[in-house]
C-alpha cells in the first residue's frame, strides 16, 4: 500500500510541476470509481504517466455515475470539460446524440499515430457501444453482467442442485420452505437484471428499432412479453411465504445474500470481491435461470457498467495522448489485472486468454460465468444491447412500477404496461429534443 501511495503522491506532484518543467500536456479524466476501484484507476493513470513523457493523465473522482456525467455536461456547457469522462451504459444514447460534444473513439484512434483495431474487444462488449456499422463510439472500461449467485450450503440443506431454470428456482424454494427456511431469492438493479437481461436472455426485444440502435423513433415493448409478466407475477406472489424478498433498487439487497437469509441472488458479476470477503458459506455463481415457458435455450446476456467517452473542444494534439492512454489501458496485462481484482469482465479477447493462461478460472471456479454468458451466442438484434434516450429516468420509472408490483398495488401486467407507457412518453421527449 505504501508504495502505491507514494507513487500517487509523486504523480500528483509531477502533475503540478509538469506544465512549467517539461511542457507535458495534461489529459483530464473524470471518473465515478470511489473506494478501492478508484485506487485502481489511479494506479492505471500513474503507470501510463510513467511510461512516457509527453502526457500526464489526471484522474479525478466526480461522484457516482450520475454526478460524474452531469458534472461533465455542466462543465461542457461552461467550456471547462475534461478530455475523458466515464459514463454508465444507460447514458450511452444521451452521449451519442450529442454530436459536436463528443469525439467517437474510433475517430480518435484512427486520427492518432498508433496501431489499433476494434476487433481486439469482445463482441458482446463492443456491440453495446458501436454504431450499427460497427464503429466503436466509446471505450469499454468496466463491464459486468448479471449472474445468479447461490449459497451452496443452503442448496445442500435443501438437497437440490444449482437451479438452471426458473421452475427449478421455485422447486428449490419449496424444498427450502419444507426445511423451514423462508427466503429463496432476491435481486438488485431489477430493471437491468430482471427485465433488460431477461428479455435478451430469451431473445425477445426490449424495444422496437433493434432496441433503439436503429433510430430515435423506438418504443418499449417490455409489456408484450407474456412470459415475463407471468414470471414477475409468480415472483410477486411468492412473497406471501417469504420465498422472494425485495431489497432495494441497486445493490442494497446484497446483505440478504451474504447473511445467509436468501439462497439465491441475481445481480452483477462484479460483486465477486465482496462475496469473497463477506460470505461465510460456500458460494458460487451460475448463469441466469431460463424460463422454459419462453425459450428452450438461452441467447446471451447483456452488459452493464461504464465506458470512457472523449469530449471535443480541446487541442488536436491532446487527443494523441487520449488515444495513447486508451491503447495503454487496453493492454492484456492491465485488463487481465483489472478483471481479476475487480470482478468486471475483461474487455479484450487477449485479456481473457491471459487470465485463462494464468489459471485464474481454475483457481476461482465460477468467475468465467459472466464472460461465458456474454459470449454464449452471436448477439442478435434483441441481445446486442439497448440504446434508449432518457434511459436513466426510464429505469426510475421501471423501478417505481415494479415496486408497486412488489407491494401488491398492481399486477405484473399492469406494472409492465404502465412502465412501457410512461417510458415511451420519455422516449418521445428525447426524440423531439434531438431531432
Amino acid at each position, binding site marked *: 500500500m505504501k508504495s502505491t501511495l507514494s507513487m500517487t503522491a509523486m504523480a500528483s506532484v509531477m502533475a503540478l510541476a509538469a506544465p512549467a518543467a517539461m511542457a507535458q500536456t495534461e489529459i483530464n479524466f473524470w471518473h465515478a470509481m470511489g473506494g478501492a476501484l478508484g485506487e485502481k484507476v489511479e494506479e492505471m493513470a500513474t503507470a501510463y504517466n510513467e511510461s512516457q513523457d509527453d502526457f500526464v493523465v489526471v484522474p479525478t473522482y466526480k461522484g457516482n455515475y450520475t454526478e460524474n456525467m452531469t458534472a461533465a455536461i455542466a462543465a461542457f456547457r461552461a467550456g471547462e470539460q475534461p478530455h475523458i469522462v466515464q459514463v454508465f451504459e444507460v447514458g450511452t444514447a444521451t452521449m451519442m446524440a450529442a454530436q459536436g460534444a463528443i469525439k467517437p473513439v474510433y475517430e480518435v484512434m484512427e486520427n492518432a499515430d498508433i496501431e489499433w483495431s476494434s476487433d481486439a474487444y469482445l463482441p458482446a462488449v463492443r456491440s453495446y457501444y458501436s454504431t450499427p456499422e460497427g464503429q466503436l463510439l466509446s471505450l469499454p472500461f468496466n463491464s459486468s453482467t448479471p449472474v445468479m449467485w447461490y449459497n451452496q450450503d443452503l442448496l445442500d440443506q435443501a438437497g437440490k442442485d444449482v437451479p438452471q431454470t426458473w421452475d427449478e428456482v421455485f422447486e428449490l424454494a419449496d424444498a427450502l420452505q419444507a426445511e423451514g427456511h423462508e427466503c429463496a431469492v432476491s435481486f438488485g438493479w431489477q430493471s437491468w437484471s430482471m427485465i433488460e437481461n431477461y428479455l435478451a436472455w430469451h431473445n425477445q426485444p426490449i424495444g422496437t428499432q433493434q432496441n433503439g440502435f436503429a433510430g430515435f423513433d423506438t418504443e418499449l415493448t417490455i409489456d408484450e412479453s407474456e412470459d415475463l409478466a407471468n414470471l414477475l407475477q409468480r415472483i410477486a406472489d411468492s412473497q406471501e411465504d417469504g420465498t422472494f424478498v425485495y431489497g432495494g433498487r441497486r445493490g442494497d439487497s446484497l446483505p440478504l445474500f*451474504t447473511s445467509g437469509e436468501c439462497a439465491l441472488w441475481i445481480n452483477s458479476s462484479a460483486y465477486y470481491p465482496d462475496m469473497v470477503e463477506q460470505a461465510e458459506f460456500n458460494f458460487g455463481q451460475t448463469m441466469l435461470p431460463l424460463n422454459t415457458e419462453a425459450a428452450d435455450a438461452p441467447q446471451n446476456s447483456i452488459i452493464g457498467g461504464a465506458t470512457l467517452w472523449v469530449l471535443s473542444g480541446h487541442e488536436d494534439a491532446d487527443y494523441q495522448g487520449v488515444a495513447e492512454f486508451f491503447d495503454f489501458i487496453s493492454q492484456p496485462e492491465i485488463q487481465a489485472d483489472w478483471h481479476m481484482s475487480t470482478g468486471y469482465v475483461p474487455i479484450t479477447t487477449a485479456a481473457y486468454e491471459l487470465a485463462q493462461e494464468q489459471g485464474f478460472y481454475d483457481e476461482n471456479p465460477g468467475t468465467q460465468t459472466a464472460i461465458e454468458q456474454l459470449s454464449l451466442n452471436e448477439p442478435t438484434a434483441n441481445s446486442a444491447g439497448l440504446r434508449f434516450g432518457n434511459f436513466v429516468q426510464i429505469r426510475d420509472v421501471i423501478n417505481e412500477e415494479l415496486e408497486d408490483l412488489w407491494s401488491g398495488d398492481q399486477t405484473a401486467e399492469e406494472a409492465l404496461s404502465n412502465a412501457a407507457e410512461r417510458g415511451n412518453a420519455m422516449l418521445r421527449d428525447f426524440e423531439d429534443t434531438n431531432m
Partner: protein
Amino acid sequence: MVERRPVLNFVQHFVLILGAAIFAFPIYLAFVASTHTGIEVNRGLPLLPGDQFFQNYATVLGEGLSTAGAPPIGLMLMNSTIMAMAIALGKIAISLLSSFAIVYFKFPFRVLAFWTIFITLMLPVEVRILPTYEVVAQLGMLNSYAGLSIPLIASATATFLFRQFFMTVPEELTEAARIDGAGPMKFFRDILVPLSRTNLAALFVILFIYGWNQYLWPLLVTTDESYYTVVMGIKRMANAGDSLPEWHLIMATAILALLPPVIVILGMQRLFVRGLVEVEK
C-alpha cells in the same frame, strides 16, 4: 425548581435521559462501527465497541483514505474549515454592513436594495445549482476557495436577522451618539457591533455548520483533489460502485468530521444560546 414533586422530578429525568439516549444513539453507533473491522460491520453491527479503534483511526489519520479513494483527511478537514470559516465570516461581514445601511440610513434606492437582498432569503443553492455553476465557471472560480464559499454567501438570512436585531436597539443610543458628534462608522464600531456580540456568536455557529455540511456544491466546483472537503470524502468512500463500502473507515472519518462543528458549538455554547433568544425577536 418552583416546588418539590419527587414523582415529576423522576419523570423529567427519565424523559430527558431517554431522549438524550435516543438522540445520541446513531452517533454512538457510528462510533461503534468505527471500532470494528469492515467485515464485522457489514455482517450486522454489534452494539458494543470493538477492539479496532486504534487500528481504524490510525489508518484514517495516518495512511490517509487513499485506500478508500480519497485525499488525506488532514487536507480535507482543513479545506472544510476554510470553507466553513469563509462562509460564516464572509456572510456575517457583508450582512452586518448592509443591514446597518438599511436600518440606519435613509437614501434613494434603499427599498430597492432591501428587496434585492431579501428576495434571496431561504432559496437554497440546490434549487439553482446548475446556472450558478455556469456563472462560477465563467468567472474562472472553479477549484478555488472563493468558488467554494462566495456563491453560498449570497443569501439574506443573516441580513434579515441583523435587521431584526437593529430594530430593537434603543433610539436613545443613536441620539446620544449623534449628540456626542460620533459619525456613523464610529457608532457602528463602538456601539452596534459590541451590542450584537451574542447575535454574532449564534450566527457564526449556525453558518459554520451550514458551510461545513455542504456536499453537492463542493462536489460540482472542485476537480482538484486539493480542494476536497471532508463531507465529500465521506460520500466518496460510501460510493464504492459495484462493491461494498468500507463502513468502519467511513464511520471513523464521519466521527472525525463531526468533531470540529461540535467543538464550535460547545465552545460557543453560552454566547450562542443567549444569541438565539435575541436572534428570533
